[in-house]
């Protein structure tokens, strides 16, 4: 296999990996604030594409405005979901919350099915035009957008966590809820904020992929499982871990296609995920947790 082809496989892997990373970030954020896996995360990806398409076709606005509307509306859905479904469960029992997110996932995809119909929807490319050539490999413009949006999201998220009061408050809540409350942070609004952020990141992934793959009401779970695998691989720890997890998973898949078989790519990447977890149950970058009584 030549360099150009290898590079081509790497680009494909990084492209899928960036998408997985965006979804994984959403899992990480909600996990940090509530300690649960949010099964509705994939539905936020679906809603991002769907609501952008809806804004684009309903209001005749430029694509960039429609995209921002799609992401913002999905964030609103995330907030409403948290207020209506998560917050009333005051004891925060993780098992109950997980079941609630499963129900939310089914509800959101059914609602999208009825609101937008069963057919796939498409958006135009952000910047149409021929693909670029790098050392014999082709890299299309939408892929560059996906890379850029992922990078921007990660940088903004890191800044939020390290440089702003709100971000520090969110981190404080994930480290110790009651201690955070003692210093005047309202943990409940931090949970709401984390759902808004997770929804927006998922929506960004949906928006960025729709020009390439179209979107439909039922795409949520497949994005969800890939993003979840990426988050676990990285270690559910910090944004950096989620991104590395996503990129690793994407590369694993495309290298499986390159060297083994496209039929088994999902099986191979899940197998690697299991192997990693046998060796490092906390994921690649997760901290081992000791229970203190």
């Amino acid at each position, binding site marked *: 296999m030549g360099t150009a082809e290898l590079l081509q496989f790497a680009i494909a892997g990084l492209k899928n990996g960036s998408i997985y990373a965006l979804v994984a970030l959403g899992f990480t954020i909600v996990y940090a604030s509530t300690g649960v896996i949010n099964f509705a995360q994939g539905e936020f990806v679906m809603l991002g594409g769907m609501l952008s398409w809806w804004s684009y076709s309903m209001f005749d606005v430029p694509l960039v405005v429609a995209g921002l509307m799609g992401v913002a509306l999905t964030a609103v859905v995330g907030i409403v979901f948290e207020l209506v479904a998560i917050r009333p469960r005051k004891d925060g029992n993780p098992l109950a919350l997980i079941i609630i997110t499963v129900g939310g996932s089914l509800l959101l995809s059914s609602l999208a099915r009825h609101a937008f119909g069963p057919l796939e929807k498409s958006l135009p*490319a952000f910047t149409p035009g021929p693909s670029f050539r790098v050392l014999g490999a082709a890299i299309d413009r939408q892929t560059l957008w996906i890379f850029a949006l992922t990078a921007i999201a990660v940088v903004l998220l890191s800044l939020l966590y390290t440089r702003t009061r709100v971000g520090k408050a969110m981190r404080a809540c994930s480290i110790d809820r009651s201690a955070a409350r003692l210093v005047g942070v309202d943990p409940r609004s931090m949970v709401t904020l984390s759902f808004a952020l997770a929804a927006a990141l998922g929506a960004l992934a949906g928006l960025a992929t729709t020009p390439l793959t179209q979107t439909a009401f039922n795409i949520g779970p497949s994005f*969800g499982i890939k993003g979840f695998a990426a988050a676990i691989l990285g270690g559910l720890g910090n944004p950096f871990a989620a991104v590395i997890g996503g990129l690793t998973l994407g590369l694993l898949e495309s290298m499986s296609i390159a060297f083994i078989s496209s039929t088994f790519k999902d099986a191979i990447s899940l197998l690697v995920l299991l192997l990693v977890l046998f060796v490092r149950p906390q994921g690649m970058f997760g901290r081992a947790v000791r229970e203190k009584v």
Partner: protein
Amino acid sequence: MGKASWIMREGRLRLLLSVVLIFGLLMVPLSGCTTPEPEDEAEETVEEVKDPYVIGAVLSLTGSFAGLGEPEKNTIEMEVERINEAGGVNGHPIEVIYEDDATDPETAVAATARLIDKDNVLAIIGSSGTGATMGMRGEINRAGIPQVSLAGGTVITADFDPLVFQTPWSNALVIPYTIDYIKAQEITKIGLVTDTGGFGADGLAVWKDLAPGAGIEIVEEQTFNPGDTDMSGQLTRIRATDAQAVVMWSAGREAATVAQNMADLGMEIPLIGSHGNARVEFIQGAGEAAEGFRFAAGKVLIPETYGTDTESYQVAVDFIERYTERYGKAPDTFAGHAYDGLYLVVEAMKRLDEGFTSADLRDEIEKTSGFVGIGGVFTFSETNHNGLTADDLVFYEVKDGAWILAE
């Protein structure tokens, strides 16, 4: 730590497995919750109206084939209304009971059992997909009622069952036709890319069976899963060979991604698809990359191809006009399959005497000869329950965002 550590104690492996399981469940959308159809409103005029003839329809209204199930249900609803307004079948109104199989074979089996045991249907139309259609076979055999499938898998009629009929052109019909077309273009080496769903897997098997004998070499064979977001890896493998064309067998929305990825990779060789891609959504999704895409399908996309002086043309134009007026868009080939499925059953009923049984109905459907439908002209026999021929197909090419006849 408190609550957040709950998951840690349980162990991440166990968490991972349970999450994977739950996602697996989510992938199979909620099903079996079909809305009950309102009872026939004609019951007030008891004296004139005879008992309705009840037909079951198992369609994929949700799940990944929802885009097929919707036009199919639209068509059946519209045509049943039309049949009943015209007096039904020898005075009996037609009543269709719809079940959603959610693109899931097991749900289709349950729906079929319900239609048989609870609703006592005379025949079943469906399902939309090959997997669900094959799943229903056990129940169909138990009840001994005829099934008219709207799915295109070769296996449906190749794995012959006297009770099962099929309205779309099967892969066994379309693939030889496509091979002839490819050979006429002087292409002898192809790269094959198929999805791992029922339609793609069926197509892959038929291609591998027929291509070598026809002098076509499959130099690379790649698959992708429904829901995949990027196929440039698979296409890169094909690009590295001396394939003269990419042949894609897939009915899902991923087909548009394949076309886009090919354009992005700068692959100049033609992309040839199947009747599964005869959908406007494919052109919308692939955009510029759809230009030059070629596929074989029935004549309904351009009714003039029937020949403007034929009965087929009249039937198709009438159907297209009524459908477009009612639903605001032109019917696709899947709507046509449902039209054919319904009328094959209804026409057979019309030929039968009062008080016929499901077994009589099956025999009568098999006697169908020269029925002019949307998919083509159907003639069934004791050994052929597909009933169409290669004459019912034409080759299309996408040009300027629309279908034209390929030369």
